[in-house]
């Protein structure tokens, strides 16, 4: 469905210092700096996939997405998405894609979302029958029947995001780009949005998601691409990403005796929650769980214990901190 080959994007930006003299100097001369936002990335995405694009701020995620949506022209490289080149066959292409931006609203602030939906109907030339059917279905799924007739400015953030999804999906796109769709939402609103995305994905709608909310990634994405310094540093399934941590697990312990800072090989103190409560990282390849539990109980007396896989944040932190050394595995 999407094929990206050696895609690059370079910007020129103006540099200036912060002192008064440097600011005034820019009136006459502004030094330019070339920024390589995206550096020869290549990947493929199949229909029906749910892919998360991750990366630290300024990594090149949004620039990549903007090229995939046809908003920006690349400096070099090729993209074929839905059989089309996004920036060359833009009008034909955008008819088949949708986009939801967590920070850019497509609704109109002072009037109800239903008016904005109607405007989209005209822009996308959706027939009356298709519009009524699709709108009814989406309204039912997202439960915004009462909400969509109130002015947008009177809606809560969660209600507004649901209406944003309707705006993006009214024309039944095959491919949807989500840019931080759950930003600022409470956990119930997040779960509603995630549930909607999953139900659409089951109908073979392909989703590409950029987010800093790793819970979104864990609950939605099957595949993760991590971009850093304009390059793809990881392209792997979620399970594969976790496996990069090796055989490490997180163990939360409440003990009768305080656990010291220095620990045997295979153990690392992650957090001291209280005087008798700690969170440890255990590498089960160095220290198996059975001897660990036995030794710890004998030394410190285990009152309570919880063992979990290390959160994905641990992987992401390692990846973000590394310099760009691309590692592909799919």
């Amino acid at each position, binding site marked *: 469905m999407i094929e990206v080959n050696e895609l690059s994007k370079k*910007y020129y930006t103006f540099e200036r210092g912060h002192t008064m003299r440097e600011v005034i100097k820019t009136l006459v001369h502004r030094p330019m700096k070339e920024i390589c936002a995206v550096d020869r990335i290549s990947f493929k995405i199949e229909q029906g996939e749910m892919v998360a694009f991750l990366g630290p701020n300024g990594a090149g995620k949004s620039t990549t997405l903007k090229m995939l949506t046809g908003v*920006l022209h690349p400096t070099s490289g090729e993209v074929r998405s839905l059989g089309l080149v996004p920036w060359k066959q833009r009008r034909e292409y*955008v008819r088949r894609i949708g986009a939801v931006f967590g920070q850019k609203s497509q609704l109109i602030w002072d009037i109800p979302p239903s*008016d904005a939906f*109607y*405007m989209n109907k005209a*822009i996308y030339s959706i027939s009356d029958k298709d519009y009524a059917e699709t709108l009814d279905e989406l309204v039912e799924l997202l439960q915004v029947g009462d909400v969509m007739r109130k002015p947008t400015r009177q809606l809560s953030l969660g209600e507004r995001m649901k209406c944003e999804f309707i705006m993006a999906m009214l024309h039944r796109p095959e491919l949807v780009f989500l840019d931080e769709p759950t930003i600022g939402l409470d956990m119930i609103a997040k779960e509603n949005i995630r549930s909607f995305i999953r139900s659409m994905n089951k109908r073979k709608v392909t989703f590409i998601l950029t987010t800093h909310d790793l819970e979104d990634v864990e609950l939605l994405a099957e595949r993760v691409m991590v971009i850093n310094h304009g390059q793809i540093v990881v392209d792997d399934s979620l399970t594969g990403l976790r496996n990069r941590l090796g055989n490490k697990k997180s163990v939360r312990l409440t003990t009768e005796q305080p656990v010291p800072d220095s620990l045997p090989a295979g153990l690392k103190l992650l957090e001291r929650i209280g005087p008798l409560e700690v969170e440890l990282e255990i590498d089960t390849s160095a220290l198996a769980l059975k001897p660990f539990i036995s030794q710890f109980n004998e030394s410190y007396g285990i009152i309570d214990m919880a063992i979990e896989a290390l959160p994905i944040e641990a992987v992401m932190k390692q990846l973000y901190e590394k310099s760009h050394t691309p590692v592909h595995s799919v």
Partner: protein
Amino acid sequence: MKGILACWSSMMRVKLAEMMAYRSHFILSVLLLIVGDLVVPLVTLLVYRSGASFPGWTLHEALLVQAVFVLAKGIAFPFFFGMVGTTLSQVREGTFDLLLLRPRPVMFMSMLSGFDPDDFGRLVSGSVLFAFAMQGIVIPGGAAWVQFSLLFIASIAILFSMSLFLSGILFRWVGSSRVFDIFDAVSGFGMYPGTIFSKALQNVFTYILPIGLIAFVPASALLGREGWGSLWTLASAAALVLLGIVYWNRMLKNYTSAGG
């Protein structure tokens, strides 16, 4: 064509609904626009009442020029000039991306999003002024009306091309709200009969900055002062529109969006 009309109809409905959400703002805006547009004609009236005049032009003939200018703005501004303001804010904020995600020509979407019903107030002030001006002149014949109608279409086309030049430059001069001042400074000359300026300036306002073609030439045609030769303005207007479209699309390539 049907799709384009449906889009315009839908957008007009949405924009009017937006205006009605703040009715007092809408009414006030329209009233202020009407008052604002009548300042220059009022000053002209005072000038003539004091005994001075524009050589070769009666009061009503001078007001006719101003009425035609305001009428042209009354049509061009709601449909075309709003795109200057929306391009200014959207390019700066990076929300212009949303227009690029619609399956319509970007220029068309920019015009749609810039549609401003407030500016129809100019049609009201222009019509009032036009009616007042017509009271003091000899009723034109059919040929003069035909000439005037064609030249009026050219006026709107010229204003459309100006909106393209002004909004196109905003892809390069991001956030430059002074573009409106550029237009106001230059277009002010178009409110007066062109013959009051020197020959050099007349040529500038005809062949370089076609301000004179917006109101002076159509009004002169209605007054029977221009022959059918003045219809060359149509070709000039068409060329300007074409140039404006090419320029706008070329400048669009400078758009780099804002941060993610």
